[in-house]
C-alpha cells in the first residue's frame, strides 16, 4: 500500500480523479462509455507519441521534431495510398513503410544527439524546421480526403473488434509493448539505467550511444504508427495538422511525472498525463465552460498539477530524512 502511495504517478492521478469527479457531477454525459471511448480514440495519437517521448525523456533527452516527423509520415502514407490505389498491397505497404521511415528519421536525430553532442533540444529543433519545411515544400499543404485513401484502409479505420475502435487498441498495444520493453528487456532497463546515471551505465557495460540511437529511432517508429492512427482517425491527410503538437506531447509526458532532466518516467504516468489533457479538453466543452475561459482553465490546471507534484516530492524527501535518523 505504501508503495502505491509513494509512486510518482500519484499526484497526477489525484488531479485526474478530482477533475473527473467534478465533471461527472456537472455533466451526465461525461461518465458514459461512449464518451470515454471518444476521449481515448481522440487522444490515441497523442498517447502513442507521448509514450515514445517518455523513453526519450527518461534518458535525459527531448525530441521537438516529433510533430514534424509524424506530419511528414502522414504525407508519405497519403502518397503511398494514391500511388497504390486499392491494391491489396497498399495496406501492407503503409503498415511497413510508416514505422520504418519514422525509425529512419528518428535515427537521424539519434545520430546527431549521440555522435555530435549537440544538445537534443537544439538538434531536434533543427531537424524539425528542415523536415517541416520539406513537407510543406513537397506537398504545398495539399489536403487529402477519404476518397484518396484505399477502401481497405478505410475499413481498417472503422474496425471495432470487441466494440472498441482499433485505434484505441493500437494505443493500448503500444503502451503495453513499450511498458514491457522498458521493464523487462535488456534495452529497456538500459534506457532507465542511463537516465539514472550515465557514467555508471557506461561502466556497467552499457553502450550509451546505442541506447540513444535506440530511443530516438523508437520515438520515430512510434511517430510512424501515430501517423497511421492519425490518418485513420481523420480519414485524411493534412500536412499542417500537427503544427505545434510537440509541446502538447511533451506536456503530457511531464504531467505524467517524468523528470525532464532524465532518470524518471513511467508508461502508466504518461498515460495519466495524456488522459488529463484529454479529459480537460473534453470536459471543458461538456461542462459548458465559455470558449474564452478554456485556455485559462487549462493553463491553471497544468500549473496546479506540476506544483502539486513538486510540493509532494519535497515533502517526501523531508520525510525520508526523518526516517533515517530515527532508525
Amino acid at each position, binding site marked *: 500500500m505504501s508503495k502505491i502511495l509513494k509512486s510518482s504517478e500519484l499526484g497526477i492521478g489525484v488531479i485526474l480523479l478530482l477533475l473527473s469527479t467534478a465533471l461527472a457531477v456537472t455533466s451526465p454525459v461525461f461518465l458514459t462509455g461512449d464518451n470515454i471511448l471518444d476521449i481515448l480514440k481522440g487522444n490515441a495519437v497523442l498517447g502513442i507519441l507521448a509514450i515514445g517521448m517518455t523513453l526519450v525523456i527518461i534518458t535525459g533527452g527531448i525530441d521537438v521534431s516529433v510533430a514534424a516527423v509524424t506530419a511528414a509520415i502522414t504525407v508519405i502514407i497519403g502518397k503511398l495510398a494514391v500511388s497504390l490505389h486499392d491494391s491489396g498491397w497498399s495496406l501492407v505497404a503503409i503498415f511497413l513503410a510508416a514505422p520504418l521511415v519514422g525509425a529512419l528519421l528518428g535515427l537521424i536525430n539519434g545520430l546527431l544527439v549521440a555522435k555530435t553532442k549537440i544538445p537534443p533540444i537544439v538538434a531536434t529543433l533543427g531537424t524539425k*524546421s*528542415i523536415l517541416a519545411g520539406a513537407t510543406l515544400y513537397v506537398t504545398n499543404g495539399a489536403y487529402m480526403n477519404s476518397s484518396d485513401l484505399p477502401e481497405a484502409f478505410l475499413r481498417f479505420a472503422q474496425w471495432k473488434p470487441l466494440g472498441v475502435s482499433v485505434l484505441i487498441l493500437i494505443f493500448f498495444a503500444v503502451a503495453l509493448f513499450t511498458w514491457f520493453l522498458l521493464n523487462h528487456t535488456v534495452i529497456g532497463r538500459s534506457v532507465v539505467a542511463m537516465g539514472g546515471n550515465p557514467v555508471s551505465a557506461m561502466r556497467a557495460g552499457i553502450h550509451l550511444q546505442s541506447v540513444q540511437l535506440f530511443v530516438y529511432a523508437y520515438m520515430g517508429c512510434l511517430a510512424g504508427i501515430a501517423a497511421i492512427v492519425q490518418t485513420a482517425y481523420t480519414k485524411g491527410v493534412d500536412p499542417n495538422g500537427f503544427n505545434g503538437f510537440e509541446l502538447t506531447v*511533451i506536456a503530457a509526458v511531464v504531467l505524467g511525472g517524468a523528470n525532464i532532466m532524465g532518470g524518471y518516467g513511467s508508461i502508466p504516468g504518461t498515460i495519466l498525463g495524456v488522459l488529463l489533457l484529454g479529459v480537460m479538453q473534453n470536459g471543458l466543452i461538456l461542462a459548458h465552460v465559455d470558449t474564452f475561459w478554456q485556455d485559462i482553465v*487549462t493553463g491553471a490546471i*497544468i500549473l496546479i498539477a506540476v506544483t502539486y507534484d513538486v510540493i509532494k516530492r519535497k515533502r517526501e524527501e523531508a520525510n525520508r530524512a526523518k526516517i533515517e535518523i530515527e532508525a
Partner: protein
Amino acid sequence: MNFLSKEWILGYVFAGLFLLMTLFVPGFFEAYNLINMLFQLPELGILSLGMMVVLLTAGIDLSITFLAALAGVIVATLLTNGYSVPVSILAGVATALAGGLLNGFFIAVVGVSPILVTLGTMTLFEGIVLLLTKGNSISGFPESYSLIGNGLLGAVPIPILIFAAIAVILSILLNKTAWGRSVYMFGNNPTATLFSGINTTRVVLWVYLFAALMAAVAAIIMTSRYNSAKVDIGSSYLLQSIAVAVLGGTSISGGYGKVIGVVLAVGIFQIISNGLNLLGVSSMVIDMLMGTILIGVLLINYVSAKRKQSQTA
C-alpha cells in the same frame, strides 16, 4: 584573442553571408533594403536576448511570446481608450512584469522546472489575451506611438537603436554586475552558488522578470510597428528565439552565452531570410535552411571544440 571561439565563427558566417548576398542578390545592398532589415531585426533580437538570459540559468521560457502578446494587448487597449502613450506603455510593462513574476515565483520559489511552468503560463497568457480581445485585433494608435516602431532617427530606425541600447545594457549587466555574474554562476552550479551566500531565488526571479521586460519591449515595438495588437502576433518567434540564442553560442544547459553571439546570430537569421526573400525563394525552403544552418554551425563548434581538445590534451 581566440579567433576560433564560437563568437568568431559566427562572425565569419555573418560576414560571409553578407558578402554572398551582396554579390549575388540584387537589391540586397541598397540603402532601402539595409534600413528595412534594421527595422525587421529588433523584435526577434530582443526576444532572443530575453531567452538567452533564461537559458543562461539552464531554464527556458516558453511563455515569452504570449506574454508579449498580453503586454501588447494591454498597451493597445489603454491607447484606444484614450490613455496617454507613457501611461499605456507603463501599464503594458507592468503587466508583463506581473507575468514574469508569476513564472519566477513558480520556478524560483516553489521550485517547479521552468519548462513545465512556462508551458502552463503559455496557455494561461494565451487564454487571458483571448478573453480580453475575443480573438480580435485592437488597432488605431496615436501617431506618436507609431513612431517607436516606424520612426527614424536620422537614417537609423528607432527599433534598432532600442535593440542596440538593450544589447549594450545587457552586456554590462551580465559582465559587470553582481546579478549578471550570479546568473552565470547559477547556470553552472546552482547549489554551489547558493552555498556561496548568493540569494539564488532572487537571481532567478530577476532573470524571469528580465525576460518579461524583453517581452514587453518587443511587444511595444511590434504593436507600434504593426499598429495593432492580437493574440498570435509574433507567435512564430518562440522557437526562433530559442534557435537564435543557441545559434549565438548560448549553452542550453546554462552557464555560457554572450550578447555579441546572440546579436550575430539574429543578424545571420535576418540576412538569410531577407536575402532569400529577395531571391524569391519559398518561405518553406527558408525554414529548411534555417534548420540546416542551426545544425551546421553547431557541428562546426563541435568539430572545432574537439580539435582543440585533442590538441591541448
